């Protein structure tokens, strides 16, 4: 049944995230085109005199603003994806749709597991799309002379190679810590929405946002205190180990918090649910 739940959750979330992703892709293509146009205009604007130079300067400032706007859209895209994941969770469980979801012949923990896995998949997809579109803009929109920025690509891989050569394990642990942080981010939002909807009779969304901030404050404080102590001990023993330890502690904390948040969420769904 988990597979079927997952299929329907993925499909439902795709209905929102796919159009947003297509819009962001179009935005990235336009941004790349605008950057190329900026190179052409900058050549004209560099002329010391002439009406064309004035016009191109004005036009170029608009192009720059357009590029900034598109980069901003690209950067907020994972957040938009995350919001749509949480909205799907809320709608599918705690609005009228919950009357169907909670009467399916499946275990409550399967419902939550499906929501969590599908949420994680879409969150990771949003990261991959962000990186791919960022790379697209850098490759095709940043060379004044050529359509493809080959020297830029070479420099990028040189830097990546150097980082992986010297700090490979650190980069790996940092990546794991980021991934675990994403797990926790979704689990914490699910917990906040569940508590908000169980506790509040009205203004459930507002209550959920409030609960989310409280959860985040408590967790951040706990993580900071424990990280500080562990990293201080690690630094005293071996200074270079502190960075590794910091990433590992952060990842471990995120995983523990994720499991705890999911367990509390499923408990509340099973025992405290009251669809109005």
């Amino acid at each position: 049944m988990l597979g079927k739940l997952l299929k329907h959750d993925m499909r439902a979330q795709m209905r929102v995230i796919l159009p947003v992703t297509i819009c962001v892709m179009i935005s990235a293509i336009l941004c790349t085109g605008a950057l190329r146009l900026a190179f052409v205009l900058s050549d004209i604007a560099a002329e010391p005199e002439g009406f064309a130079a004035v016009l191109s300067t004005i036009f170029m400032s608009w192009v720059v603003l357009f590029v900034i706007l598109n980069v901003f859209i690209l950067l907020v895209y994972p957040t938009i994806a995350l919001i749509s994941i949480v909205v799907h969770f809320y709608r599918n469980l705690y609005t009228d749709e919950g009357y169907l979801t909670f009467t399916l012949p499946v275990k409550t923990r399967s419902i939550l597991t499906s929501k969590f896995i599908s949420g994680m998949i879409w969150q990771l997809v949003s990261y991959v799309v962000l990186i791919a579109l960022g790379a697209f803009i850098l490759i095709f929109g940043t060379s004044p002379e050529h359509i493809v920025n080959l020297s830029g690509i070479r420099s990028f891989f040189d830097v990546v190679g150097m980082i992986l050569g010297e700090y490979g394990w650190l980069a790996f642990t940092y990546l794991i810590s980021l991934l675990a942080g994403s797990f926790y981010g979704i689990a914490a939002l699910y917990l906040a929405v569940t508590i908000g909807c169980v506790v509040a009779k009205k203004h459930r969304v507002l209550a959920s946002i409030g609960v989310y901030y409280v959860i985040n404050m408590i967790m951040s404080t706990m993580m900071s205190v424990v990280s500080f102590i562990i990293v201080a001990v690690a630094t005293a023993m071996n200074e270079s180990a502190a960075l590794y330890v910091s990433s590992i502690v952060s990842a471990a904390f995120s995983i523990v918090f994720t499991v705890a948040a999911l367990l509390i969420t499923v408990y509340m769904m099973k025992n405290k649910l009251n669809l109005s």
Partner: protein
Amino acid sequence: MNAYNESASIPILTANMLTKSYGSAPVLNCVNLTLPAGRIIGLLGPNGSGKTTLIKLAAGLLTPTSGEILVCGRAPDEVTRGLVSYLPERTYLSPSMRVSETLDYFADFYADFDRVRAVDMMSRLGIDDSVRLRTLSKGTKEKLQLILVMSRNARLYLLDEPIGGVDPAAREYILSTIISNYASDSTVLISTHLISDIEAVLDEFLFLRNGGIVMQSTVDDARERYGMSVDALFREVYRC
């Protein structure tokens, strides 16, 4: 199917000292109830008498404050949810779904869902399965939901106000759909306050007041004993 489902001796729905409170106020108070198989039963009472709460408890959407409720001898869980076909008083299908996707959804999750029956009923009503639910009228959405619910071969149908918000012609369709689709070993529990509309299809009824059952009887017994219809009896019992 499990052995306990097939056993005729186990009632379809049982409540033992069932109590449900929101805060300090009990909505259901020490309800004892046994519903046998093969009946259409009216769950009748004024607003706030606990009808919806009783149905939600049987559907597994609420947990009792005390006492117990059993579906085919088992406390509500994922197994009983497979035996119960529940129609809430609101639209629970996502408006972004197509009609065909709602059929896929029910076919995926309910082993007892009869897709052919559902498609047949939909075509008779002229519901296009390629359209999204948000384009359907409220009445059509309610009919679609009823078709989905009654296209299951469930043991217990829980219908919460199925005719509350629809026109008289649609009421007739809904009631004929209920009568013609439930199996002889199934029980249908219909909550409503439109008694005159459903009286003709009922075998039994329950009167609820202030969270308690004030009367449970077959329709024939009540008519014989009190010399009046269930509708008239309801007005008598609940006279303000």
